[in-house]
């Protein structure tokens, strides 16, 4: 089981990263907030706890790689990269501005720490698999992590990558399905049912676990257990809540893409501030 203080510290970081997301939304006036906030706990845990990366040397040869197949969740990745020190937080205020290095979908040639130009759905898993194949081929120890949305699973190219990853025994590849159950047109199971997701990946030859993807303790325990099974790619089915952390927006598809008002931004920030305050108090009382 993950250490309690470590969990709280990461929860605080995740809340700070959520505030970074809001900072970008304020700068640009809008953004894909729902999916960013459902995935951000996983990304926080990866960058602060799991991945071997160096913010001062983002292109370090044997770094672990993180790819966002669901590129529209990039506000979450930008938020975490900034918090982890990959770039100056002032850049967050350029979101939506002409020539910004943090566009609405990530660009590896603009921002340090981005590994692939995603945005069109169903690309990330193949690219991630290719990187993992290269690591295996060269006997390198680095790992590759990739987040897909549940709404992008109907893209056939995902299943091409799923088959290849199993054939090439990519146990150094972990795919997280950010299963927040909502896409722009509604419930993912109604738009196009891909359930049971876990069984589908198992049938493709993957080792699968299901967790609450907004529960830091469960995330850390799952990351600690990687690889789940030698010789099999890892699928972490993460049950998440869309817009997690903004009470008025949780599980509401209207916040898939949010045209934000200052009033609601302030409310969300206050909620996060009090959340951070509570967590810090817990940390303090634990240390007594």
């Amino acid at each position, binding site marked *: 089981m993950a250490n309690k203080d470590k969990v709280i510290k990461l929860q605080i970081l995740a809340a700070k990263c959520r505030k970074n997301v809001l900072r970008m939304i304020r700068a640009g006036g809008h953004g894909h907030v729902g999916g960013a906030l459902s995935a951000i706990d996983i990304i926080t845990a990866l960058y602060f706890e799991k991945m071997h990366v160096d913010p001062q040397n983002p292109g370090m040869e044997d770094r672990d790689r993180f790819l966002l197949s669901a590129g529209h969740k990039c506000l979450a990745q930008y938020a975490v990269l900034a918090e982890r020190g990959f770039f100056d937080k002032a850049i967050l205020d350029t979101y939506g501005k002409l020539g910004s290095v943090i566009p609405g979908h990530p660009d590896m040639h603009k921002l340090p720490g981005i590994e*692939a130009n995603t945005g*069109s759905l169903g690309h990330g898993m193949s690219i991630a698999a*290719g*990187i993992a*194949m*290269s690591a295996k081929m060269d006997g390198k120890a680095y790992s590759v992590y990739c987040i897909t949305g549940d709404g992008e699973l109907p893209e056939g190219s995902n299943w*091409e*990558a799923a088959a290849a990853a199993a054939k090439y025994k990519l146990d150094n590849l972990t795919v997280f399905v950010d299963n927040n159950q909502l896409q722009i047109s509604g419930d993912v199971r109604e738009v196009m049912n891909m359930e049971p997701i876990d069984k589908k990946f198992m049938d493709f030859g993957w080792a699968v676990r299901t967790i609450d993807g907004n529960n830091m303790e469960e995330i850390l325990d799952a990351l600690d257990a990687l690889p789940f099974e030698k010789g099999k790619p890892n699928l972490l089915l993460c049950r998440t809540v869309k817009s997690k952390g903004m009470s008025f927006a949780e599980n509401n598809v209207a916040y898939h893409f949010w045209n934000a008002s200052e009033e609601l931004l302030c409310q969300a920030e206050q909620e996060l501030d009090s959340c951070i305050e509570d967590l810090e108090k817990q940390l303090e009382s634990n240390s007594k």
Partner: protein
Amino acid sequence: MIGDYVDPRKAFGKAVTQLAAENERIVVFSADSGVSSGFADFAKKYPHRYFECGIMEQGIVGMAAGMATTGKIPVFCAIAPFVTARPYEMVRNDIGYMRQNVKIVGRNCGLTYSDLGSTHQSLDDFGLMSLIPGMVILAPQDPLEIEEATKAMIEYQGPVYMRIGNPKIPILFERRPFVIGKGQLLRDGTDVTLISTGSTTRDAIKAADALAKEGISVQHIGMPTIKPLDIELVRKTAKETGKIITVEEHYINNGLGSLVTDAVADMKNVVVKRLGVPEEYAKTSGDYRELLAYYHLDATGIAESIKEFLAAV
């Protein structure tokens, strides 16, 4: 030796396999297409660098791009429409937009699959690939040039699409280094400039020979790079003859002819005629040469088109 016939796929596969001995970064992806792309030897010699993924072109393009981010030089060859039109957006984003060092090779290009029909013919690959910023497009003209172009393609850092045909083709030229972006003057002349690429150069040479006997002086340019086009050479020859005729095994639109037309669009007293396949799903025939003749892309057809062009302007 000049005149010997060689299977383009074998020339290509042999070249990659030879280069792979020196360059460990080269890896090969197969979509159930490796052996027919000339990679039987490569697969035997370098099994750990040969990835048989089955028929999943979209996935392969993504995986190749991912591998390239780690410094590998992935080569992916299959039937031309299946590496261009089929996974187009993966080529555009994962290789083009991501600027990855992946080499895509479309074989059995153009009308090669004469009787298999339009699903297997590629008459739009120059057009599709030329729309991708930074994509280099090669169409070598004979077996030795295929070998040299393969070498140049591997040495070049960045995305490349190369197209090759299928039936055996004769060696036309002595071996010479392949320079990306350069055309060659194959024959000097004064009445008209003929610009050919890829498989059509062989018939274009014959057409120019035949016309010479009739007193028509053809300036013939071989253009094995479609993009970046040798604009300097095109404009120089346009100035000299004022009349350009292009020939390619591709749709008339959006290929070599269109790029040449663009290159001379602001020049006075220059006219361009473009030979190729009109916008249609092409006829089929069990005989590839018969199909080329139907579309006036054989030596006789090219010579006749040149005469018609000269009579009309």
